[in-house]
């Protein structure tokens, strides 16, 4: 009897395995039309300020894949938190597993961390959400909440000490007695007519998404670094969040094998 149950369970899980596949997302960080190079390269924003970037990182979460007919697959929330850092190559390619077979034409996600997880108990904050671990520089302790997007660097125009600028954007709306700005924004990225086919685990499609860090500074509000060299919890943070919600764009779709090394090579990541 036991044996039968065992076989039955195997069969069920095998069937499940065949119904799902994986995809990878590669984030390509740029400043306008140029690649983002930390520390060494000089850029210009729309206001004409010259700047260098020393740090650029952000959370994405609550990922959804959208089918042609508009229906969506919502990733299990616990598996949908990712911290992407320019300084860490590995973090710029993420893999989403157990995606149901099908054809998808767009992806959407939240830029930052949803309000529920910002208010959740400590037991639900593992991995990239660990405030003593991976998230230690993406968490405000005195005003408890995650930083969603963080960019730092220097600019000759900056009026702050040592010409630095710091944009730390967070704030999830608050909880209980505490009401704050809500800088949670969403991004939806259309695959431009291409179709993402999730078939099996043999071939893993890779979506390349371009993240344009200059969009923090350019957009509905062109940021003058001299006027706003540091933006954290203040009202101006909403302007930057409004700007950066457009920083993601579709840059290509590749089908790759499960051989990770080969994939990395193909993406020029070695």
């Amino acid at each position: 009897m036991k044996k039968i149950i065992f076989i039955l369970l195997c069969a069920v899980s095998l069937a499940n395995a065949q119904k799902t596949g994986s995809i990878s997302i590669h984030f390509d960080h740029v400043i306008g039309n140029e690649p983002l190079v930390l520390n060494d390269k000089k850029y210009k924003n729309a206001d004409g300020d010259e700047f260098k970037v020393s740090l650029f990182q952000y959370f994405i979460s609550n990922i959804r894949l959208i089918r042609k007919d508009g229906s969506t697959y919502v990733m299990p929330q616990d598996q949908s938190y990712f911290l992407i850092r320019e300084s860490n190559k590995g973090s710029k390619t993420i893999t989403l597993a157990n995606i149901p077979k099908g054809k998808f034409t767009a992806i959407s996600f939240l830029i930052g961390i949803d309000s529920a997880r910002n208010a959740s108990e400590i037991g639900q904050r593992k991995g990239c959400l660990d405030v003593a671990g991976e998230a230690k520089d993406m968490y405000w302790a005195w005003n408890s909440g995650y930083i969603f997007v963080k960019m730092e660097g220097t600019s000759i125009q900056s009026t702050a000490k040592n010409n630095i600028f710091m944009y730390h954007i967070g704030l999830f709306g608050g909880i209980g007695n505490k009401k704050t700005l809500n800088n949670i924004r969403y991004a939806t990225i259309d695959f431009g007519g291409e179709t993402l086919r999730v078939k099996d685990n043999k071939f893993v499609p890779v979506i390349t998404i371009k993240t344009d860090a200059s969009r923090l500074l350019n957009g509905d509000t062109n940021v003058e670094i001299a006027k706003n060299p540091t933006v954290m919890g203040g009202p101006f943070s909403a302007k930057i969040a409004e700007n950066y919600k457009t920083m993601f764009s579709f840059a290509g779709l590749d089908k790759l094998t499960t051989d990770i090394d080969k994939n990395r090579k193909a993406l020029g990541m070695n």
Partner: protein
Amino acid sequence: MRKETKIFLLLSGVAFLSFKSITGPELFSVPTNFPRPTYHFDSNPLSRAGVELGKTLFYDSIISSDNTVSCGSCHQQSAGFTQHGHVLSHGVNDQLTKRNSMPLFNLAWSGSFGWDGGVHDLDFFAVSPITNPVEMNESLANVLEKLRSSPQYPALFKSAFGTEEINTERFLKALSQFMLTMVSANSRYDHYMRYEGIEFTKTELEGMELFKKKCASCHSGELFTDFSFRNNGLTHLTENDFGQFEVNQNENDKFKFKVPSLRNLSYTAPYMHDGRFTTLEEVLEHYDSKVEKTDFLDKALNKDGRLGIALTPDEKQKIMVFLKTLDDEDFVKNPIFSEGSLLNPILAKNINDDLMNFKITDKTQRELLNQCVESYLKIKSAIQANKSKVAGNEAKKLMKVLAKMNIQEVSQKEFFRKYQDKLFFDAEHIFEGEQSTDHQLDHFKDLSDHLYILIASFKAYEQTLYFNQCQESAMDWLSDIPTDLFVVKNCKEIQTKILTK
């Protein structure tokens, strides 16, 4: 009346029972006159070993960057878990924070933490003082690393959580477990409310009635706070602290601070977020006649064209009498919350590790250092005799001597300078604490340690000195006589190091 009482007891009995199953009645129970707590006990059930671990962490300075500051440094039990006589709390390298440390008790009933309410969950609060550069100035990751490599903590985490793993969740939950047990509900007021054989005097009853009329709209309920944030019309507020505005950037919340509980006021002076008032008389005077009209002033303090709350001298007197009934001596003296009750004492850092092998060649400097010792011994006698003013004066003399000192040898200069600064800071606080022997004692241990390190490193003593340490009382002191108990009582063991000439 009788019937009401019965129903009340029955209801609170239900609340108590439902909690008993979660946490065990000995570690945490809901006083029958209290509402239901708001803390999420279901995700952090208290255990004896968890509370013990939390208590050990609370009293261990390992969680600060230079291992000198613990939670207990700025939250002392005898002061209702705030800091004796300190207007503003201070952290590593003697830096000052901008606020008066808040008393810690009845935290299970609070939904927001800190004067500005920036933290919504007790579990996350400790991250703030640990990482604040002017408090403990340490990273959480490094705290965990230090705990992992300590000889005692892996075993403590194992008894609390089943395995030796030390991670963020376990660390923060253990601290919460201990802090949640700090329930203060045994004041005269509580006994009166629970019909436990206490009767109020006529003045206390009148004070309570006045309190209900004049104060209880904000300091409401059995916790004596409505947990709101308000601007109470303090004058001379400065732009270095906007209160709740700093958290939410809402113009209407400028200079709003948490309405604190009024329990244990006799132990928690000074008062207000910046510790500006040293007595309750000043506090009541403020509400009666000194409330400043600003754009942000709370509406409750600007009614019918009158600023503040009208209080006659007689009314103030009676309210003060009532407020005293909220003092819970049981709580501030209960040994289960003290460092002394730890099953495994915290491994103290060996002060002798900091000693250097130096020599003072300059005769003047050597004499000055000996003058420091003389001054120190006078401060000690004054503190021992409870003469805080005399101790303050001597501390001022010590500051003057210290200011004259200057060591030229390059290899020794930096070391000397470091302890010279530390001693100056300690002396300054003993001077400023001339109203309170308790406050002076807080700084006396550091003064003793720093002077010991300096004179032992430079071997600059003209007489035989004895350096005594009593771990249970957390007190160190230098003496010129071999058996000197200073202010320490019931010490099981005093370790003495003799500095012979």
